[in-house]
């Protein structure tokens, strides 16, 4: 585990955030995690504006995106990312409760890199988060310009 890519989580439900972080913690992936609580905040982070004016402008290695979000919903965030020259390279994983076909179709049409339905079973959930974390933050080579911790 030479480098650890930064994971940006966009999730409005505090419990989901906590459970996700717990799962990542088990595998020491939690240091490089940024949590935003709605679509607007996520975009603020990505565009380095608002509360995130001061951060370095590197992109996260992966974005874990919930679909149902306050203010700006997940599909809109996805659409904005994928239509922005600088942001479109960020791998985006939709992590949602919805197994609805139209959500999947819409996400893939917008160019999502993966679509994961949150399992109800906690073991499966932890496994899913762990695998996502390891794959995207460790195994996957993120596009150049991503934040990585040596």
């Amino acid at each position, binding site marked *: 585990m030479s480098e650890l890519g930064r994971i940006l989580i966009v999730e409005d*439900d505090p*419990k*989901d955030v906590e*459970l996700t972080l*717990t799962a990542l913690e088990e595998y020491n992936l939690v240091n490089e995690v940024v949590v935003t609580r709605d679509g607007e905040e996520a975009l603020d982070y990505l565009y380095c504006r608002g509360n995130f004016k001061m951060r370095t402008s590197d992109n996260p290695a992966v974005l874990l995106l919930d*679909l*149902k979000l306050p203010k700006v919903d997940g599909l809109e965030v996805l659409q904005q990312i994928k239509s922005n020259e600088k942001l479109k390279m960020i791998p985006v994983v939709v992590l*949602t*409760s*919805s*197994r*609805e*076909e139209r959500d999947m179709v819409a996400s893939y049409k917008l160019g999502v890199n993966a679509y994961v339905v*949150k*399992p*109800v*079973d*906690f*073991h499966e*959930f932890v496994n899913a988060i762990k695998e996502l974390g390891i794959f995207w933050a460790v195994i996957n080579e993120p596009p150049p310009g991503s934040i990585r911790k040596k």
Partner: protein
Amino acid sequence: MSKPEISSPRVTVLKFGLAIVSVAIALGLALLAQVYAIPNLEFPLLLCAIAITIWYAGNGPGALALLVAVLSFEYFFAEPRFSFYVHPADRPLFVLFILFGFIMAWFSSRRRRIERELLEARDKLEIEVAERTQQASLLNLTHDTVFVRDMSDVITYWNRGARELYGWTAQDAVGRRTHDLLQTIFPAPLEEINAELLRSGRWEGDLTHTKLDGTKIIVGSRWALQRNAQGQPDAILETNNDVTERKRAEGEIRKLNEELEQRVVERTGDLEMVNKELEAFAYSISHDLRAPLRHMAGYAELLQKNASSSFDEKSRRYMTMILESAKRMGDLIDDLLAFSRIGRAETKKTKVSLEQLVKEVLSEVRPETDGHNVGWRIDALPNLYGDRAMLRLALVNLVSNAVKFTRKRPQPEIEIGCVDGKENDIVVFIRDNGVGFDMKYVNKLFGVFQRLHRAEEFEGTGIGLATVQRIIHRHGGRVWAEGLVDQGATFYFSVPKSWEE
């Protein structure tokens, strides 16, 4: 038609008698005139007698009268009198006699011919009048409105039906101009209608008329043009039927139809709205109901992990129950969503090899056999035409049911086959030798959340067969089952053959 000539012997005798008598009378009168010294009366008197005879008795008696008159004249009046000697100076007189006879004969024959023709013409006319009268009275019998008008629109015939419909009697109507009397409103310019009538000899259409009492009616009108012997149009026969009520009913039906269409549009809109709401509801279940469930399971799991050392046996069991319930609720939500998705999704019809589909289903379901050695019997299966994914889901449900309910058998046996159904159905069946069911609960089998077994006996959400039924119904087919407690069960579904390629 000429009357036969009366020519009995008696009439013949009378005719010739007339010749003799008329000449005799003329002779008598002439002799009498001579006695009274009235000169030159004999010649015209005898001519009169001849003329009368020819006129009334014909040419035969006329010839006799001529002969007798000539002889009488010669004997009684021509010099020398009382002898038949013909003085040459009298010859022109005789020629005059004969000439007169011929002229009279000619006149008489003309007269007779004319008389005969007149009689014939009268007979013809009588027959025609009788026929016309009969036709007119027949036309009067009908309740249909029939009238005739001439080419200047003046009514010449008006039947009882016309009186009944419009209120005017024939006396009132005949001689009036139709379109003035009835205040006709035409569906097209009158010139066009007349042009059509003259061209084709007939016209049909709806007219608006005003009755005697002032009410307006709509009539279905048929006009027929009558031409005279020279081919000139001379009358129009108009037959009308009151269609006011029908038109009103039609209008009402049209209005009702429009209302109905409007209502259908509204209802469809309502339904679409309800459908959208349902979809939103299903989406909400999918998303919002699952999240708290995941949290419950997640935190319970974390609690178990952190505190299980300090838990006694009972508490650990409680934790297990909480986790099991959360899992079960997750399954229920998934199944319900799948069920609702079938109702909402469109069926994508393709040719489906049932044999191939069953193979796939078996490999999917096999892990559920838990190492039990199931005796599978798969018959030859036809091709179906339907939504592959849906049919697959139906088969998975049915086969996995069969596996589930034969699990406690030492020798589980499952047969999948196909029989020809009634009319144009293909019937597929899945038979097992499992625990079966009591036929008195057969109606509950396919209901949502209906279960015939306790949860601890056989797991399940009670949605599987409801899903199967919904899928088959969406294919226009039917599902049913037969079973006996402890004797196994057979599930059938039919798909119409018209779906078959």
